């Protein structure tokens, strides 16, 4: 049995604020295996973002620990083990789309030819070929978010962490991007951690759905999906899909109940 790619043991994080301690995460235990697509779902404030940030070493846990590729989160970050997609695309307005995608490659010291090659490849991957020379403001919100995904894919990280990447987009665009994301996941064989608050999105995308509950932020239930990896949007009308969606909804309701 392979070692999990991401593993959290008794992970806790308490923010000390002026209004007293906030228990953002409490006793989280979770293993994510290679090639998994794991969604985190739960009401807002249940610690989804905080958990992702702990994995990314953007937040330091106050208890327990988390390992990434068998290393500490800090070591993994320094080895550039993951690409992180934030809720906002966060493209630099003074760089073209190509220039934005090249940014992490420049920072990581890839040579010029390699940079050009990779930019071209990932732009194709997110179906933005031809937009390399355009500036961000010339692209729609959905295209900008695709560019930001391309940027996170451009370097050799086999983990992709995404925090509500499509949260600000309308449903039609979101459906399309979800389908693209699945194709991309199949082609790149990355391990993906994905935060969402949409049940259909979580069920459609994931191999594993982590239902979280707030105050303190905890994992209420982990639902393994038995849907085939190769899916299209039509699957949302299937019985299996609706069964899983139902379980997620029940989990959310129950997790919320002991407020």
């Amino acid at each position, binding site marked *: 049995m392979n070692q999990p790619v991401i593993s959290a043991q008794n992970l806790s994080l308490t923010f000390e604020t002026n209004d007293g301690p906030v228990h953002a995460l409490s006793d989280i235990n979770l293993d994510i295996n290679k090639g998994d697509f794991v969604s985190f779902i739960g009401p807002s404030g249940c610690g989804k973002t905080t958990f992702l*940030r702990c994995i*990314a*070493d*953007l937040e330091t846990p106050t208890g327990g620990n988390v390992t990434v590729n068998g290393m500490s989160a800090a070591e993994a*970050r*320094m*080895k*550039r083990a*993951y*690409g*992180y997609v*934030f809720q*906002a695309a*966060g493209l*630099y*307005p*003074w*760089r*073209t789309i190509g220039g934005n995608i090249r*940014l*992490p490659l*420049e*920072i*990581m010291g890839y040579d010029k030819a390699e940079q050009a090659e990779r930019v071209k490849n990932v732009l194709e991957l997110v179906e933005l070929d031809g937009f390399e020379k355009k*500036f*961000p*403001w010339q692209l729609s919100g959905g295209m900008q978010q695709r560019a930001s995904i391309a940027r996170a894919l451009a370097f050799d990280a086999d983990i992709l962490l995404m925090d509500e990447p499509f949260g600000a987009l309308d449903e039609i665009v979101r459906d399309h991007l979800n389908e693209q994301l699945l194709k991309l996941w199949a082609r790149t064989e990355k391990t993906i951690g994905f935060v969402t608050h949409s049940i259909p999105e979580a069920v459609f995308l994931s191999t594993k759905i982590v239902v979280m509950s707030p105050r303190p932020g905890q994992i209420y239930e982990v639902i393994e999906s038995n849907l085939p990896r190769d899916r299209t949007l039509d699957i949302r009308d299937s019985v299996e899909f609706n069964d899983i969606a139902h379980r997620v909804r029940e989990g959310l309701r129950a997790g919320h109940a002991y407020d």
Partner: protein
Amino acid sequence: MTKAGAIWHRTAPVLCILILLLAVWYAAAIALNAAWAKDKAARADKQLTFSELVSDTMAQEKPLLPAPHQVAQEIYKTTVLKKITSKRSLIWHGWITLSATLLGFAFGTALGIMLAIGIVYSRAMDMSVMPWVITSQTIPILAVAPMIIVVLNAVGVSGLLPKAFISMYLSFFPVVVGMVKGLRAPDHMQLDQMRTWNASSSTSFWKLRLPSSMPYLFASLKIGIAASLVGAIVGELPTGAVAGLGARLLAGSYYGQTIQIWSALICAAVLAASLVALIGFVEKVTLKRMGMLQ
């Protein structure tokens, strides 16, 4: 709209204001200079008609307020009709002031940017330097300038440098304030993103903070260059300097040469406006190149 129409659309308001200003100026010149004209006439036991009065108020040698065309004539005489190397050429005086302005501005900008970097990257500097930067600007420059000039003269520094020093003193301030804001413009997300790429802080500086600060920098530079010019002129006043627009102002006021004062003033204003416009142009080109103007 046609192109000519568009230009007209933009210039018409400016022209209107200009005409209005000239009208007010002429009216004020007549009102202010009338007393002198009447005095003169009374001494000669003459009675002035209204038109005689008006034409006298516009042709006095040392009017309280010279009429616009008198100033225009003086400027024409001292720019176009004089050799640039002549000590009576306004262009020569303007250049003296401009060179101090530009040197002081360059120093001020460099100092401002360096202080801003220090303040943004070092908490200790943020706490210790910023109050002094602000204090420095609460001291009236007119009080400090003579001391700076005299002290620097005493140690053998005279001419361009003391004036440039005062320009720097005035121009570094807007640059510090603007650049601190500009270098802090990147939000948490952008800084976190740099962290996910394990970027060094110098990388974050060159690739994120500095480009983000460009719009702030240009806004500061526009204020800074105008302040620099004021500094250079102020620097020319206290020693009774013989050259520069400040010297023209001072000499003019010694001898009651109001026309000379006003032409130096207009010259300084035109210079300031051109410098600000030049930076505005560089700003536009740079930000457009950077894709930050749409």
